[in-house]
């Protein structure tokens, strides 16, 4: 039993599941978008935006705010749902996802969407950008923290490890990375396409503090985010074990649901499963 109240944990879990339903609706309406990697990160983003981050939706440019950088930009549907429900823009706008004239691009665009800290889409940028943001905080004498959500396939990109070295060199304890370790990427299982294991040892070898959690367990997510704030001499990565397509039986652990939209029958079944679990 942890120090967060059962009520908080319950609320956040319920929110995360509701957000999955909204994500499903968005991708179904658009007939395009990424469900698998949005579902796997639902608890992580919910904990960040509905409890952990120091933010003020009425002031998206508030200088003191914590920064969240979605490096795995294809989880944009989830980010949009969370931002809308947190009050950064109207929930009704979610229906415009991937349509002409929408502020909700297929991948995040910082110039278009209130609350989106950084443009993303192609993978590999988040750590180095986070390093710059965290260094700027240090130079400016500000105590905001910077968070980066990484995909597991994404860390196959060499530039991620450039960022890992930079963050360690400058001992950026104000930078926390979260690895959405669902073990499935576009083409198949991560362990087959290009193994990243032993991932804990890799980050440790790069002089990061490493925590390992179940990324769908809200209490563990909250405690890890808090725990990273107690590390004062190096950056922290939270390795969050997750399930791609979490919550929908026929999507779970299936790479074909990385970036595919459901048809009518699939939508109905997915909706029933997600609602049934609440």
């Amino acid at each position, binding site marked *: 039993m942890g120090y967060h109240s059962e009520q908080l944990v319950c609320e956040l879990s319920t929110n995360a599941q509701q957000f999955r339903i909204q994500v499903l609706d968005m991708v179904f309406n658009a007939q395009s978008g990424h469900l698998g990697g949005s579902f796997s990160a639902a608890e992580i983003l919910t904990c960040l935006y509905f409890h952990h981050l120091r933010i003020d939706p009425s002031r998206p440019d508030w*200088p003191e705010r914590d*920064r969240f950088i979605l490096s795995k930009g294809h989880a944009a549907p989830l980010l949009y749902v969370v931002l809308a429900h947190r009050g950064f823009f109207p929930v009704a706008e979610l229906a415009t996802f991937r349509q002409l004239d929408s502020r909700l691009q297929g991948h995040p*665009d*910082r*110039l278009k969407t209130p609350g989106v*800290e*950084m*443009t*993303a*889409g*192609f993978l*590999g*940028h988040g*750590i*180095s*950008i*986070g*390093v*710059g*943001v*965290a*260094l*700027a*905080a240090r*130079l*400016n004498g500000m105590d905001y923290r910077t968070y980066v959500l990484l995909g597991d396939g994404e860390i196959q990109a060499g*530039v991620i490890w*450039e*960022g890992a*070295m*930079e963050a360690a060199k*400058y001992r950026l304890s104000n930078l926390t990375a979260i690895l959405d370790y669902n073990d499935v990427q576009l083409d198949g299982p991560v362990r087959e396409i290009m193994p990243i294991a032993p991932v804990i040892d890799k980050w440790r070898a790069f002089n990061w503090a490493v925590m390992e959690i179940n990324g769908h367990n809200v209490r563990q997510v909250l405690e890890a985010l808090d725990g990273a704030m107690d590390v004062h001499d190096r950056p922290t990565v939270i390795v969050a074990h997750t399930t791609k397509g979490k919550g929908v039986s026929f999507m779970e652990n299936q790479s074909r649901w990385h970036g595919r939209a459901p048809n009518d029958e699939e939508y109905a079944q997915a909706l029933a499963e997600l609602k049934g679990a609440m």
Partner: protein
Amino acid sequence: MTEKLSMRIAYGQALADYGEINPDVVVLDADVSASTQTHYFAARFPDRFFNVGVAEAGMVDVAVGFALGGKIPFANTFASLISLRAAEQVRTCVAYARTNVKLAAAYSGLSDSKDGPTHHSVFDLAVMRAMPNITVVVVADATEARKLVPAVAEYDGPVYLRLSRAEVPVIFDDDHVVKIGQGVTLREGKDVTLIGTGIMVGRCLEAGNLFADEGIQARVLELHTLKPLDEALIVQAAEETGAIVTAEEHTIIGGLGGAVAEVLSTRCPVPIMRVGIPDTFTESGPYEPLLDRYGMGVTDIVTAARQAIACKSRGILRDCGQA
């Protein structure tokens, strides 16, 4: 003989001097500070200097992060590494995301001459010019390097600043006014216009002087900003002289020549001759002979100008359709 000064040392010292004035400037380098001359800044402001090692893509993304955090980052490495290895970082995170990053592209053109084609940067302008939101600025001499550091830092938005390794003839004195986006008329003339950028500006002036000896009045323009282009100045030159030569230390595809042709083909079609590197890779060699070997000699400019004037006098492409 014109005095020559090192452009890179002028840049490095100017950056360090400007660091004193503007505390928001931070400088990044990818293990080439002894080459780019950012070591001047590093020595004076060690807390605002970040050497990320041989990691150019990472460096550009760190610079993006600094810009998001309200700083004015100058990211320094060789032009080919910025424009090619880190091109996706520049496209996605600098250009598309419109972050206030200054890309200081050292060793451009053939200026790292003896290191050979890997180190030459001969299509960076084509790459950078094609990206929306990027302002492309090419430095002509040491004076301009000094003046452009504050101008680029205080310019709102991403800038690609193209610099040379070489000691280059000094063209401008301290009265030179550099305004990003505004071309400079260096010599008046009515028979032909020679448009230069970067170190080719000096060679255009030399060609202009040669023509003066034989009674041909060549106008000489400097375009330090390839984007946004000073279209009015170019169109006016085409209208008034009827023949254009462009000269750049770059392939003739997609750089200054391409930019000028794009404007004039619709607004005032006159003969245009493009001086630069033909569509080929280069080779190692001493700098100035290498420029001559690959089509950027003063004689190349002169020949091109004669061809442009001949086209004009044969009546090819007359009438700009201007009132």
